[in-house]
C-alpha cells in the first residue's frame, strides 16, 4: 500500500492566505510563508499554492512567495492559478515549484496539457478540476476560481486530461469547498474510478472522518485540506507585526474570531487518525537528517 499524502492547500490572494466558502467571501488568514513553514515542520507531504484570483484578473503573482518559501521547504510544491503559457510554467518551476496545476487554460485549450507534459514531463503537470454538482446528478467543470461555467462534464474532462498527459488530478467540489460538510465522495469516486493517474481530493474536510471517507469510499490517492488545518494553524502561529491593512478582509484576524463550521486539526492529528484506521502515512524524517 502506498502512503496517503496529506497536502495543505494555501489559496493566496495578493500577499495573503485567504479562505472562503464556495470560493466566496475571502477572509485573510495570514501570510503564506508562515503557513508554509508551519505545515512543513508539522509533517505535510506536499504543499499546494493556488493563486485565487490569477485567472479572474489575468495575472500571476506568486513568484515572490514561491521564491521565499522553496529555499527551505523540502517537500514537493505545486503551484496553480493563471498559468496560461509554457513560459508561465517555466517561470514558476524556475522560482522553485516542483509541479504546476492548470485549470482555466487547460479547459480553454486542452492541447495545452499535452504540450506542457511534453515540455516538462507528465509528473510535473497537475490538472485541477473544480466542479459543481448539477440537479441531474452530473458534475460541471468551472474555471476562473469557481466563477465561470464551461458546460464541460467534469468526469469526461478528467478522462480526457489523463489521456492528454496529466500526471495527477486535483478534484475540488465547489459545493463543499469551505463548508466543512465533508468531501463530495461521489465526485471523487467517479473520477478516481475513471482514470489511472493519482487523484487528490479537495474541498469539504470538516472533521477527521471526512478524510478517511474520501480515501476509503472516494478512493482518493491524496487529500488536499485547507480550512480544517488553517483554522487550527491560525491559532498557533505567532501573530504578525504587519497590520495586513493593504488589502483583504482582516476582520477575522483582527478580532481573533473562530470559524464554527469546520473542526480544527493539525497534520499530526490527521496522520495519527489515519494510521489508527489502518492507512499508511509518511511521518517527517528526523530533522538532523535533513539539515545535513
Amino acid at each position: 500500500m502506498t502512503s496517503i499524502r496529506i497536502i495543505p492547500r494555501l489559496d493566496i490572494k495578493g500577499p495573503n492566505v485567504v479562505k472562503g466558502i464556495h470560493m466566496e467571501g475571502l477572509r485573510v488568514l495570514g501570510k503564506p510563508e508562515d503557513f508554509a513553514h508551519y505545515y512543513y515542520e508539522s509533517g505535510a507531504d506536499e504543499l499546494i499554492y493556488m493563486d485565487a484570483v490569477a485567472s479572474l484578473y489575468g495575472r500571476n503573482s506568486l513568484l515572490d512567495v514561491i521564491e521565499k518559501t522553496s529555499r527551505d521547504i523540502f517537500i514537493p510544491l505545486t503551484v496553480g492559478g493563471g498559468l496560461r503559457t509554457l513560459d508561465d510554467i517555466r517561470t514558476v518551476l524556475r522560482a522553485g515549484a516542483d509541479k504546476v496545476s492548470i485549470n482555466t487554460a487547460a479547459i480553454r485549450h486542452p492541447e495545452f496539457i499535452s504540450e506542457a507534459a511534453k515540455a516538462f514531463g507528465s509528473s510535473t503537470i497537475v490538472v485541477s478540476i473544480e466542479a459543481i454538482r448539477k440537479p441531474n446528478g452530473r458534475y460541471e467543470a468551472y474555471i476562473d476560481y469557481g466563477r465561470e461555467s464551461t458546460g464541460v462534464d467534469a468526469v469526461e474532462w478528467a478522462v480526457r486530461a489523463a489521456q492528454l498527459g496529466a500526471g495527477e488530478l486535483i478534484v475540488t467540489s465547489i459545493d463543499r469547498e469551505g463548508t466543512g460538510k465533508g468531501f463530495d465522495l461521489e465526485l471523487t469516486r467517479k473520477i478516481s474510478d475513471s482514470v489511472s493517474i493519482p487523484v487528490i481530493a479537495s474541498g469539504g474536510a470538516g472533521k477527521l472522518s471526512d478524510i478517511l471517507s474520501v480515501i476509503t469510499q472516494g478512493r482518493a490517492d491524496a487529500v488536499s485540506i485547507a480550512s480544517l488545518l488553517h483554522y487550527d494553524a491560525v491559532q498557533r502561529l505567532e501573530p504578525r507585526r504587519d497590520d495586513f491593512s493593504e488589502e483583504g478582509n482582516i476582520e477575522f484576524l483582527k478580532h481573533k474570531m473562530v470559524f464554527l463550521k469546520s473542526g480544527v486539526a493539525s497534520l499530526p492529528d490527521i496522520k495519527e487518525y489515519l494510521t489508527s484506521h489502518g492507512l499508511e502515512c509518511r511521518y517527517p524524517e528526523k530533522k538532523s537528517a535533513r539539515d545535513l
Partner: protein
Amino acid sequence: MPETSKEKLKALYGLPEQVIFCKRCVMSNQRPASIPEFKHLPDRRGATYLHMDEEGVCDACRYAEKKEKMDWKKREQELLKLLDRFRLNDGSYDCIVPGSGGKDSAYAVHLLKYKYGMHPLTVTWPPTLYTDYGWKNFRNWIEVGGFDNVTFKPNGRVHRLLTKLSIENLLHPFQTFILGQKNFAPKIALQYKIPLIFYGENEAEYGNPIADNQKSLRDKSYYSTGNLNEIFLGGVSIPELIEKHQLSSNDLKAYLPAEHQELEAFPIEVHYLGYYLKWTPQEAYYYAVEHTGFEARPFRSEGTYSKYNSIDDKIDDLHYYTTYIKFGLGRASYDASQEIRNSHLTREEGVALVQRFDGEFPKRYFQEVIDYLEIKPDEFFQLCDRFRSPHLWHKENGRWELRHKVS
C-alpha cells in the same frame, strides 16, 4: 470622446451631465440615491445622485473612512441603552426585523435575539420570484436560526400588473419588492403594537446623503405619507390605477405606506443596526453560514463575480441590468465598490471585475421572469433602448456602448 465635447448630450432623469468616477471605488456620480418609491415618476423628478467631493471621492467612501475611525464601543453602548429602553420580558415581541433570510437580516436578528436578549419578530415581504437558494435560505433562517416570522404574500395578479407597470414606465423591475420591503414592517409594527424596527445595514454606506447617517432614526418620509394623491405605483397615480387598470383600493393597500394618523397615534422608532455595529457584509456572510444555515450559491450571479449578495429573487439580476441601462452601473459596480470600501479589494481589482462582468445580460432567469410578467423579449429590449440616456450611451457598429467606463 469627441462628440461629447462638441455637442451637449441630453442627460435623462436629472442625471449629472458629466460622468465622474470616484477615485477610490468604482462608483460614478450617476448612482441614484434611493427615493421614496411611491413618488417615483418616469422623469425621476427630485432624484439625487451620488455626491463627489472636490477631491473626487464619493460620499460612500467618505463614510467608510469615518467607519474605520468610529468608536464602535461607544456606539454599542448607545445600542445597549436603546435596547434596555425597549426590551420586554413579559412574553411579547419588543422589536421587528424585516428581512428575507439573506445574510444581513440573518446577522441582524440573530445578534438581537441571541446576543442582546431581545425578542424580535421577523417580517418578510417575499421576493417576487424566489430562487431555490433564496427559498432554502429563508426556510433555514427561521428553522435553523430560530425566529418567529410573519410573511405577507401579496395578490399575484396585482403584483404582476404593478411589477409590469414599473418596468414599462420606470424600467424598474424591483419597485414592487422595494415598496413592500419598506412599507410592510411599519404596518406590522402598528398592528402588533411593536414600537421598534431594526433594519440591518445603513443605506448611507452606499451613498445616500451623508446627512441620513447622522441619526440612525430612519426618515419617516420613506414609509409614510399624508396624502394619497401624491402616491404613484409603477409611475401611475392611484386614481389612474383604479380607473384604467380596474384595481380597487383594497388591491393596492398592501403596497401603500402606513397611515399617517396611525403613526402619529403610535410612534415607531426605526433604527439601522449598522449605525451601532460595524457592518462588514463579508463577515455577515460567515455569521449567517454559522448561525442560520445560510448558503451562498456555488455559482456567481450574472453581471457580477459575487455569490452571496442578493440571491433570493430571480428578478434581482434583471434589476441590476436595468441600473446598468439607466445609470451605466451594473451589479459588479455595486459589489466591487462595497468591497473596495471595506478594503477587501483593491481599486485595480475592482476595475478589472467591472470591466469583465458589468452589464452581462442576465439570461439565467430572464425568460422565466418575463413570461411571468407577460412581457415579450422584444418589448423588453425596446424598453431598454428607450431608457438609455444619450449622455451615457451611443451606438458603435450597431451595438450599444457606454461612453464612459471606469478605468
